[in-house]
């Protein structure tokens, strides 16, 4: 047993024990949930301080590529710590400022954090699918409104279901051709598959990721879901669920599709990666333009997430070392900055009962720190120098400029989108800052003070400290990102996973790489000849 497993097992165990304490969120259940997440984040930070990476954890004693293996390196632990801290922050925020406090909120946030950790660590395609499904189910249940119309959430369910159906069918097709579910092993068997299998499975699985990443035209569920959900859930959807989908999409793209290189061109004109790049660029620019037209603050933040994920998809599609590092930087920067923005939005909405940002004037005068936190979040997202988003966008530009005309067009679009995004976010900050503005019908309470409580400062300053740390001292992150990028790029596989696979292949006489083509069906035929294929041999060993 390894500590990495605790990130999955501990929150799940606590989540299932919490309902025993009663259906209302009590002091005990809240403390248990918060302490679990805090302890896990602390364990993760300790692991990062005394690094012994990379580790491969084999679940149930079944060696890769037969069992499920978890790949634990500095990057994955950092991501898990980030997700746990965001979950902690959202949970704490909901306890302090949320209207309703059922115990299900605590339970679902814990389940979400467990599934996020699993999806980050796993090296098995089906396991990844299962964990992503659990995050989607938890996010759906979290964003379902207690009162009012659930139409936005039903749309989310609909898109999520079709996405996961498409992904599952893709996995089934891929398995029927390759006979394995291990991501690394799939990557090395990919070139032996027939083109129809490659195309169908590649496109269908990526389609599932794109829906969860809110890429245009599959983003339609996002704005209405964000609007109906409480701000703490918006924070989780944007920082954890979407960021996780982006990381998983990158993992699939890098390990199995080898950066899109192993897929033949769509037509003579453009390649698969370029198609994805174009989709990302479209999302980037349309999301930023929609932000300018949006009156509702939560939907505005949703479009900002959509736009940022477009940029991440562009970086994934570029696939060169710098672009890969940009993917990691952007996921972190986006999660941190957007959490701060949702924090401010949540506080304002809890006072004004109105998420239309034009009616927010006056609050900033009563508590100026709110405006400062909004600007800090904005600076992080748009990438002002010395803020986290800056390093992400700078690395992205470096990667894009290596790729010729496509890259240059991408950089131009990025600059245009950043301008739109800045204007949209700064306008909201300005409205918050203004003393007088359009009179709001619900503005009967004259600008109550929001700040001043210990809990407010504790949360906001912790998040700001994380942002400033990543912005001013990116070397710590950068080092982990470079290590991870190199590990994954070496033959498209994390080297430790590859070694364990090879070692097993030699021991059991598995001959996939030396004798070339080893498809599933041939494996069975060779079995009949008395040459026991490794997969089946392992079944009998296991029993």
């Amino acid at each position: 047993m390894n500590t990495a497993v605790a990130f999955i097992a501990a929150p799940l165990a606590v989540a299932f024990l919490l309902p025993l304490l009663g259906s209302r969120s009590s002091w005990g259940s809240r403390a248990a949930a918060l302490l679990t997440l805090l302890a896990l984040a602390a364990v993760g930070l300790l692991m990062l301080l005394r690094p012994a990476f990379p580790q491969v954890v084999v679940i149930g004693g079944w060696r890769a590529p037969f069992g499920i293996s978890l790949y634990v390196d500095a990057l994955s632990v950092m991501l898990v710590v980030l997700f746990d801290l965001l979950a902690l922050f959202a949970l704490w925020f909901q306890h302090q400022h949320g209207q309703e406090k059922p115990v299900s909120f605590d339970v679902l946030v814990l389940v979400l954090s467990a599934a996020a950790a699993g999806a980050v660590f796993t090296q098995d395609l089906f396991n990844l699918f299962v964990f992503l499904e659990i995050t989607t189910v938890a996010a759906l249940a979290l964003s379902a409104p207690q009162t009012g119309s659930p139409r936005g959430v039903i749309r989310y369910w609909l898109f999520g279901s079709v996405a996961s159906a498409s992904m599952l069918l893709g996995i089934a097709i891929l398995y029927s051709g390759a006979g394995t579910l291990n991501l690394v092993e799939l990557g090395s068997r990919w070139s032996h598959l027939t083109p129809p299998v490659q195309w169908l499975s590649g496109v269908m699985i990526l389609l599932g990721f794109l829906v969860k990443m809110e890429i245009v035209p599959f983003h339609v569920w996002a704005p209405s879901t964000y609007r109906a959900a409480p701000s703490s859930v918006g924070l989780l959807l944007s920082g954890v669920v979407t960021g996780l989908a982006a990381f998983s999409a990158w993992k699939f793209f890098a390990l199995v599709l080898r950066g899109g290189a192993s897929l033949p061109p769509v037509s003579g004109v453009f390649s698969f990666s370029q198609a994805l790049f174009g989709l990302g660029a479209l999302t980037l620019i349309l999301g930023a333009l929609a932000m300018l037209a949006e009156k509702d603050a939560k939907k505005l933040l949703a479009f900002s997430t959509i736009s940022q994920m477009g940029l991440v998809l562009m970086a994934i599609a570029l696939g060169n070392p710098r672009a890969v590092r940009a993917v990691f930087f952007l996921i972190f920067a986006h999660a941190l900055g957007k959490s701060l923005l949702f924090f401010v939005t949540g506080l304002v909405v809890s006072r004004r009962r109105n998420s239309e940002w034009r009616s927010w004037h006056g609050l900033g005068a009563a508590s100026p720190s709110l405006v400062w936190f909004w600007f800090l979040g904005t600076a992080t997202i748009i990438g002002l120098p010395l803020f986290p988003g800056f390093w992400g966008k700078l690395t992205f530009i470096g990667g894009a400029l290596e790729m010729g005309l496509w890259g240059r067009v991408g950089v131009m679009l990025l600059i245009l989108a950043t301008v739109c995004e800045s204007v949209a976010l700064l306008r909201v900050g300005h409205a918050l800052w203004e003393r007088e503005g359009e009179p709001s019908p619900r503005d009967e309470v004259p600008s109550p003070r929001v700040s001043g409580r210990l809990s407010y400062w504790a949360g906001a300053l912790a998040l700001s400290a994380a942002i400033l740390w990543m912005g001013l001292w990116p070397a710590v992150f950068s080092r982990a990102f470079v290590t991870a990028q190199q590990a994954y790029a070496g033959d498209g596989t994390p080297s430790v996973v590859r070694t364990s696979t090879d070692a097993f292949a030699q021991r059991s006489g598995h001959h996939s790489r030396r004798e070339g083509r080893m498809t599933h069906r041939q494996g069975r035929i060779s079995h009949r000849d008395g040459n026991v294929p490794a997969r089946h041999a392992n079944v009998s060993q296991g029993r």
Partner: protein
Amino acid sequence: MNVVHLVAISALSLFGIGLYGLWSGRNVLRWILAVGLMETGINVFLVLTGWYPGARVPIITESFSTSGPVPFLDPVPSALVLTSIVIGLGTTTLALALAILHARSHGTLECEADPETAEVLE
């Protein structure tokens, strides 16, 4: 036309019928049923990927060692289908709960697009 083709065609037809069901109506219950059909289609397809004519059930028995080199069925897809069915149960239950919420707040199961949310890019 052998058994494999027949099962594959029926699995993909189930998936297609489900897609058509999503496409052709706006009733929440209809959507839930349609998604259920799609999932069933995929599950049948998954079972098919592990099937092989003349292969044995992958259970190790006493006679296994003496029975000679007879191929096993692939047990992995069965495990996957089991997981997939459980996930399907979970999401269907959740969707039914959402349908109840919808019926309570709108008095109907017809999920029309909200005029206020039909804006830019939606």
